[in-house]
């Protein structure tokens, strides 16, 4: 069974989807990711979909689910790298991804997650060099 790897980066989880997703794989990613959020008390989830050519209603719903479930577990979700053609298609499809934060690329997504960290947090620095102000 294929699996989408989930990387830990400081208080954040990083997922880069590099393969064509079929439904079962997307569902597995959803549950793996949510369990991981819980296990490491992640504060943020970054999902890079720059290599994804197709986001249909199912995949869109999974992204929304991940965002909502993580929020309940006190983690923010940012989806980054969406291809312009995918964005056009999603809106026309009627799925504007309400409640899912997006950023143009991984760097900006990381900065956004950093900026959403509570100020009291004294977590170790992440490897990311673009700390948001």
């Amino acid at each position, binding site marked *: 069974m294929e699996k989408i790897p989930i990387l830990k980066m400081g208080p954040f989880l990083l997922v880069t989807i590099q393969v*064509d997703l*079929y*439904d*079962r794989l997307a569902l597995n990613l959803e549950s793996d990711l949510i369990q991981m959020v819980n296990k490491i008390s992640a504060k943020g989830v970054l999902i890079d979909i720059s290599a994804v*050519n*197709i*986001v*249909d*209603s*199912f995949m*869109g*719903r999974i992204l929304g689910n991940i965002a909502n479930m993580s929020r309940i577990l006190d983690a923010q979700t940012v989806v980054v790298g969406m*291809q*312009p*053609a*995918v964005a*056009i*298609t999603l809106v*026309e*499809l*009627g*799925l504007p991804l309400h409640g899912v934060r997006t950023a143009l690329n991984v760097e900006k997504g990381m900065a956004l997650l950093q900026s959403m960290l509570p100020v009291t947090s004294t977590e170790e620095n992440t490897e990311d060099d673009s700390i948001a102000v």
Partner: protein
Amino acid sequence: MAIAKEQDVVPFRNRVREVAVKIKMGLVNQTKLITAASELVRNMLRYANGGKILIEVVSKGRSNGIRLTFMDNGPGIADINLAMKDGYSTGKSLGLGLPGARRLADEFTMQSEVGKGTSVTIIKW
């Protein structure tokens, strides 16, 4: 192309993309076509346990397009108008598949007979 399980969807999408690239379809239209196809394939798998898809290149005047015909022998759809409504679903989905696919395609026709099966045709120019 026969579709019987979820994993068949990925090669099917790739096949559609190959054909779309061959007729020099633009990237946005390719994405729309494949997304619409993906919705329809999912319906076919979920409600009819799979079926067959015909991929054809069609031309009208100087423009080329792709026609996809999805045929299944599933339970059929009793009320097509209701099924085409945004947000209506007999499963537990968002109910965007059929209406979304119609918006993404340039031409959309659907025939269904309860107990016999459903056939959906989409064309993207």
